[in-house]
Structure formats: structure tokens, C-alpha cells
């Protein structure tokens, strides 16, 4: 085979792949606004993205799975811990991660920056990315969470606990480790006290670092209180 033919194979192979790639790039641009809710991409979200970049968040964390694997993925962090939770972590990492095996530096983030950052992360959490990552997928609640929250017949309290609390707290070894494990919390507090803690942790323990869970509805809060009071 003459080298001229080899050269034409090179050219043809490259061009075919390039055309497919560029056509799909064009298609991506057509669809990206709908997939990412571009109408909700406000100036505050953009400011938050600047904070994200200025503070080098992506050098320890991943987002959309990209970045560095030293700290948790933040694609759906807003669904895990909400605006208040994000602010709490970012403003006082030395308190939140006091007992963690891995620390987060205090990056001198201001209150305003933290709010903008949370707005950015809220927008990111609503990107339609085929339900990734698996650990935050509501459709794909893990076997451990199902076990922890009572198997097939999931009570309202268990479901609400799984949805709102397990980012920080664990039961039966499943869940987060930012807050204490709650396996025996029922021996310490009754349902009403737990409800009060969820609404405003400082009302029960003034030194509490947990942020008020304002995104939990009254019904869910009551259900979680009853569910946790049974954990003895």
C-alpha cells in the first residue's frame, strides 16, 4: 500500500470523527439552555461561580464529577444540606469538621460570598445530568438507606429523615459523619425536643453548630421527631 493511501485514510478517519463531534457540539448548544435551566442563571449565580473559582473550591471538590477527589462531590450538595448548611460549612469549616478525618481550610469567605456561592450550587443542583451522582440520586436510594429507614414499608418519618438528615447524620452506620450518629438519640431526647432541635438547634443546646433546618416542612419535622424518638 502506498503511503498516499495511508495519508488519505488518516484524513478521512479524522474528518468523519470531527464532523460527528462538531455536529453534536452544535446540538449541545441548542439544548443546553433547557437542560441547565438557563432562565434561572441569574447574576447572583454568576457571582457565586466567581466565588467558587476565586476560593479554589474545585481544587479539593468535584462538581459534575470533575475536579479533585479530596472532598465530596458538590453537584447536588444543595439538595443534601441546603443554603443554610452550605453557609455553615463554608463559614466555619473548623467547627463543622472538628471530628472529621479530613479538614477543610477556612478560606475567609464572607457572609455575602457564602450566600452567592449557595445560589450557584442551588442552580447547579437542578441541572438535568441524567441523575448523577448515584449517592445523591433520589430514584436510586441505596440499599443501606433503605435498610436504615425500615425496609419496604417506609414510614413518612424515615423517608423524611433519609431525605433531609442523612447528609450529616447516620443511623446503623449509614449516612454522613458531620453530625453525631443518631442510633440511640431516642434515649436522650423525646419527639418534641428533637422537633425543636430541627427547627432551631440553639434553642436546645446553645453551643450547637447545626444550622436551623428551615427547608423541612412542619409535617416532615414532626414525622422525623417521632421516627428519631424511637431510635433507642
Amino acid at each position, binding site marked *: 500500500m502506498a503511503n498516499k493511501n*495511508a*495519508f488519505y*485514510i*488518516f484524513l478521512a*478517519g*479524522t474528518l*468523519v*470523527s*470531527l464532523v*460527528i*463531534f462538531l455536529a*453534536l457540539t452544535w*446540538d*449541545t*448548544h441548542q*439544548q*443546553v439552555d433547557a*437542560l*441547565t435551566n*438557563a432562565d434561572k*442563571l441569574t447574576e447572583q449565580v454568576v457571582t457565586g*461561580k466567581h466565588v*467558587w*473559582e476565586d476560593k*479554589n*473550591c*474545585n*481544587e*479539593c471538590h468535584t462538581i*459534575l*464529577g*470533575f475536579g*479533585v*477527589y*479530596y472532598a*465530596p462531590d458538590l453537584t447536588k450538595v444543595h439538595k443534601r444540606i441546603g443554603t443554610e448548611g452550605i453557609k455553615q460549612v463554608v463559614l466555619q469549616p473548623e467547627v463543622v*469538621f472538628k471530628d*472529621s*478525618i*479530613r*479538614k*477543610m*481550610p477556612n*478560606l475567609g469567605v464572607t457572609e455575602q460570598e457564602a450566600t452567592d456561592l449557595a445560589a450557584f450550587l442551588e442552580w447547579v443542583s437542578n441541572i*438535568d*445530568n*441524567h441523575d*448523577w*451522582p*448515584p*449517592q445523591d440520586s433520589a430514584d436510586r436510594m*441505596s*440499599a*443501606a438507606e433503605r435498610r436504615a429507614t425500615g425496609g419496604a414499608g417506609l414510614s413518612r418519618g424515615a423517608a423524611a429523615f433519609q431525605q433531609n438528615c442523612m447528609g450529616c447524620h*447516620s443511623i446503623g*452506620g*449509614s*449516612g*454522613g459523619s*458531620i453530625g453525631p450518629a443518631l442510633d440511640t438519640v431516642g434515649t436522650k431526647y423525646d419527639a418534641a425536643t428533637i422537633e425543636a432541635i430541627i427547627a432551631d438547634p440553639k434553642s436546645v443546646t446553645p453551643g450547637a453548630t447545626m444550622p436551623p433546618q428551615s427547608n423541612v416542612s412542619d409535617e416532615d419535622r414532626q414525622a422525623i421527631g417521632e421516627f428519631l424518638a424511637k431510635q433507642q
Partner: protein
Amino acid sequence: MAEEAAVIRTNMTDAAPVTARAEEKLVPYASQRVAYWYFVIALALFVLQLVVGLWLAISYAFTIPQSVVDVLPFGMTRAMHTNLLVLWMLLGFMGGTYYLVPEEAEREIYSVKLAYIQLVALVVTGVIALVGFAFGWTQGRPILEIPTPLDFVVVIGALIFLFNVAMTVIKGKRTAILGMLLGGLVFLALLYIFGMPFYRNLTIDWFYWWWVVHLWVEGAWELVTAAILAFVLIKITGVDRKVVEKYLYIETALFLFTGLAGTGHHYYWIGAPRVWLWVGGIFSAMEVLPIIAMVIDTFMTQRRHGIVIKEKVVWTFALGTAVGHLIGAGVFGFAHTLPQVNYFTHGSQVTAAHGHLAFFGAYALLNFTMFWYAMPRLRGNMNVNKNMALSGFWIMSLAVLGLGSAMAVAGIIQVYVERVLGDGFMVAQGHMQLWFKIVIVFGVLLIVGLLVTIWNMVFAKRAVLESEAIV
């Protein structure tokens, strides 16, 4: 095929280029000497990269107290680790280019002065960038951290380089290797531009981030390294140029055919259309084919050629490049490229394992192949301590295989504990710490292997070499 065999047969009988060259000048063109400083600085930066990397492994394996983390955040050192990687490898490619272009084009480099100016510009930019990271001066995007003002210096440096190489090629002889090399370098420089702007939409941001990162390592860099490898193979095996060039075209055709559309394997979970799952999955699954072709081709080169290759060290590194490429990029890449698998492994330590094995196998060993070909010539001493050089190869290769495998085990633990069991990130990291302690051990071994190699390649005195010479 018959005509090829004839070419090879003639080659075997009437020429043994390697020995014939012994009486010629080791470095035929004076301007090739600029490569020396590119290589030496590249090696120094590689040492620095490994030292920083060791600190990163320690940060994974142990709990670093808050007081240390506040002063020396992990992210800062990680930015240094990756930027040192990119800088030393690019300097290696550029040095390699300056070394091979005069011999291929059969004329001196267009401007030696520009080559040095460009080297100084890039190294100074690199140093400013690294110091800047310590003070938080970064663009905040992994691997593309260099702040925009410095980006422009990089672009100017790249343009000087391209101009210098292009002028040399235009005024000299044009070969397929030079065409491939120049094409790869232009492609490389163009892609860098997509990483420079600020993107409002995070999805679009990552979409074009991969135009730089993926299309570099699975596109432009493949062209550059294929050209460098082809050059070295022609020189040390004496196989006919036409045969090597034919495989160069076919392999790079396969690399680009699979690699361009294969970019889609990074677009599965970023908020891009679902069609990328199909296109990315199918094309990137084929990305292993050109690598297999390359391995077969490299081994067959020796068999077809049928004579003993004198430069054992260079040849070992060349084979190592092919095999390392296959393990790191081919096997580890393929293992988690299908969407069904990638859904669970994406953004975990599995990716880190793949990254380390692939960069070392495909690009670090390729650079060392060129270093080991050029440095003894540039130093005017072909009496290389072969045993020490081969020890260097095996220590480094096994160390990277070890640390990459340890990261892979950590990654599998992470996938299972965090993503399948749903036990939370830190719980998984706790189980992974043991494996990062193993990474530290292999990291130290890698540094030892590199220092042995550098001592042998750059510092060993001629007298010492001669007394222990095997060649």
C-alpha cells in the same frame, strides 16, 4: 506487503545506520543543542512534581491538622502538582521537537535565539504561576489554573515556538513526521484558547474544558508523541522510513477517529444531551484499538527488522511507552469508559488511578525515550551505564504501576462504600486511607527511580560511565 519485505531485506543487508553513524557527528546540527536545556529543566520540574505529589498522598493517608490545612490547603499543592506535570511534559515535547526537526528537515533551526527566548518565557511564566498559586492567584479551574494574564504569555510563547518550527520546516525538507508533528503542535496551541474565557454556564464551562484537556491528551499530544516515537524508531532500528510513516498515518488516523468523538465520554453527566452517552461510549470504547496497533507495531518492528538493536536503553523505553500506554490509557481507560460503569466510577479515585498510569505510560515514558536518545549525544558520550538506566526504567515503571493500582483499589472501595452502599464520603475515605499509605511507599520508590535516572543521564562523569559501560 511483498514490496515492504523487500525494503526491509535491503535494509538489513546494506545498512546498519546506528553503527555507521558512530563516525559521524553525534549531533549533526549545532542548533539541536537547544534541546539540552529543555530536557534538563523538564527533569527538574518532574522531580518537583513528585515531591509535591508525595505531600498529596500524605494528605490522603493521614489526618492533617486544621492549623496546617489553613496555611497550606490541599488544593494549592494539587494545583502545583498538575501544572508541573503539564509544564515539564510540554518542555519535553518542545525540546524533543527542537532536537528532531533539524535532522528531519536537514537544516539548522530557523532561530536558536527565539528558541531560548521562548524557553525563558515559559519557565518564568511557570515559576510565577506556581508562586502565585501559593497566594491564591488562580483561575480556580483544575489544570487550567493559570490566571488569564499569564495565559497570554503562554500563548505568545507557543506562537514563537510554532513560528520557529514552521519556518525551519518550510525552508527545509518536508517529511511525514514533520507534517504530523507540526499538525499536532498547531492543534495543541489552538485548543488552549478554548480554556481561556470565563463561562457563565458551568455545563458549557466543562464542555470546553475538555476541548483542552481531552483533545490534548487524546488528540494533539498523540500526534506529537507519535511523530517523536517514529523519529526515534527510524534512528535506532534502521527500519525503512516508508514503513514507519505508513504506520504513523494509520495509527494516528485511528487515534483521531476514536479520540475526537470519544470526547463524549466526558459529557455523560454534565447536563449535555443524552446522545453523548451513545457516541461517547461507542467511540471511546474503540480508543483502545490504536494503542493495541501501536504495541503490535512496535514489537513487530524489531521482529521484522531482525537485527539486534544497539541502543537497548532507548529501545526499552520505547517498548515501555507502548505497553504503558496500553495499560494506563487503554485498559484502565476502557475499564470505566462505558456509561453503565462510568455512572458509578465517575469523579472517584478510579479516575485518579487511570490518570496516573496513563500519563506515565503514554507521556512520561515517551519523553524519557527521547531524553535517552538525545542526552547521551548532546553530552557527547554514548557510553551509557546501561544497567543503571534499565534499573531506572524498572524502578519507575513498577513504582507507578504500584501506586496506580493502589489508587484503583481505593477507587473501587470508594465506589462501593460511597456510591453503592450510600455510606457517605468520609466513611469511604476512612476505608481508603490504608491504600494511600501504600501510594506513599510507591511514591518514594518512584522518586528514587527518577533520581537514579537523572544522575545517570545528566550528571554521571564520562570516566565513571566508561568503567562501567556495557555497550
